[in-house]
């Protein structure tokens, strides 16, 4: 007798997504739903959708949700969490959303130790608006607003969000994952679960940064895109845990 060992998580609606073929968002959505299911928290989970390709995440995950303004998800999550401390609140944010326009909001949610979990999807571009440069666009990368390739003298340096937020005392769990191959995906899920657990235990702010492929705006096939994550992104954005709740410290960096 065959037994189903992999299927759509219960907390996801059985609908097709609007994402491009090969997009990392779909994988990250699934990890999120699996963690929610495994922790059995769907009835007390609240999500905050960003503005970005994943603005429609509420069409896929079956929990109470807000749709934020661009960059403001952490503030909305703060408002919600303060009203309902017993709910599990997550934000889902792109790199334009979190690392650019929403810089102040994410830094201060972390500094306050706001008990929320942030899924930060770093795909090195603005996906939804057509592939413009993000703060996380890597040096040399061409985008629609860095057509000559990102050069430090003109466009400055990429921002390492996980490392930056790890300097804040309010941040309890900070990690970076990638979803470019099954091994990294499995590890990503473990980190995400730890992040949610950090929130549920009331230990403070938690964030997982996911390096994610955007084949469309990178102008690559999905297969090329996952390779590009490995070869270009991970060297600049090392995977690992940068901060763990006291006593559970792991070394930063390294795969």
């Amino acid at each position, binding site marked *: 007798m065959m037994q189903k060992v992999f299927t759509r998580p219960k907390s996801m609606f059985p609908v097709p997504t*609007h*994402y*491009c*073929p090969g997009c990392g968002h779909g994988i990250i959505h699934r990890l999120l739903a699996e963690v929610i299911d495994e922790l059995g928290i769907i009835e007390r989970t609240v999500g905050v959708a960003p503005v970005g*390709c994943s*603005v*429609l995440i509420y069409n896929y995950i079956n929990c109470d949700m807000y749709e934020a303004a661009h960059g403001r998800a952490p503030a909305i999550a703060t408002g919600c969490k303060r009203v309902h401390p017993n709910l599990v609140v997550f934000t889902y944010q792109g790199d334009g959303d979190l690392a650019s326009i929403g810089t102040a909001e994410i830094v201060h949610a972390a500094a306050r130790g706001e008990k929320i979990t942030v899924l930060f999807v770093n795909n090195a571009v603005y*996906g*939804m608006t*057509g592939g413009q440069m993000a703060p996380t666009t890597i040096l040399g990368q061409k985008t629609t607003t860095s057509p000559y390739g990102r050069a430090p003298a003109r466009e400055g340096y990429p921002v390492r969000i996980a490392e930056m937020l790890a300097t804040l005392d309010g941040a309890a769990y900070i990690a970076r994952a990638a979803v470019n191959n099954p091994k990294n995906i499995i590890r990503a899920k473990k980190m995400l679960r730890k992040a949610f657990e950090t929130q549920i235990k009331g230990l403070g702010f938690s964030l997982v940064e996911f390096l994610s492929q955007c084949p*469309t*705006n990178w102008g690559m096939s999905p297969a090329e895109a996952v390779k590009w994550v490995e070869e270009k992104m991970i060297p600049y954005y090392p995977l690992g845990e940068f901060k763990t709740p006291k006593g559970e410290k792991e070394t930063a960096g390294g795969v």
Partner: protein
Amino acid sequence: MGFYEDLIIAGFGGQGILFIGKLLAYAAMKEGRNVTWIPSYGPEMRGGTANCTVVVSDEEIGSPVITNPHSLIVMNNPSLEAFEPRLKTGGLLVVNTSLVTLQPKRDDITIVHVPANKIAIELGNDRAANMVMLGAYLARTKLVAEESILDALEKVLGKGKEELFEVNKAAFEKGTEIGRV
């Protein structure tokens, strides 16, 4: 009143819908006419629906948005459903039968059936289906000269794309043949 024509081209994103609209607009401009080209697309970066409206006129163009177009080029089922009812009585519908499986319902319009993807695949490039459609449309409406389109195509593709140009040209010409039938 001088010359006036408007049309909507509709299909999936990625089918080159906006592209053939631009070719048309560019060619018409080069022939000295006023033109407007307006795109419209959904939230999807790839896939999803896309369409564009092209107006060509000898006079100042008022509305660039068209309620009831004179012509319609349709590249997939949802577009047929969305736009067929809006076509003007007596209007022209060019439909890509390789992808459109639904049947048009109107009997007060002219319908040109074009197996565009099939032809394009035969010519060696599935992505040239849009040019087949454009050819068929032009053969019927003579909105611009065929050479104007080929000039525009050459200009837009730029240098070093001779191969691509040839495929597209072949597709376009195949389309004009079908349209003329």
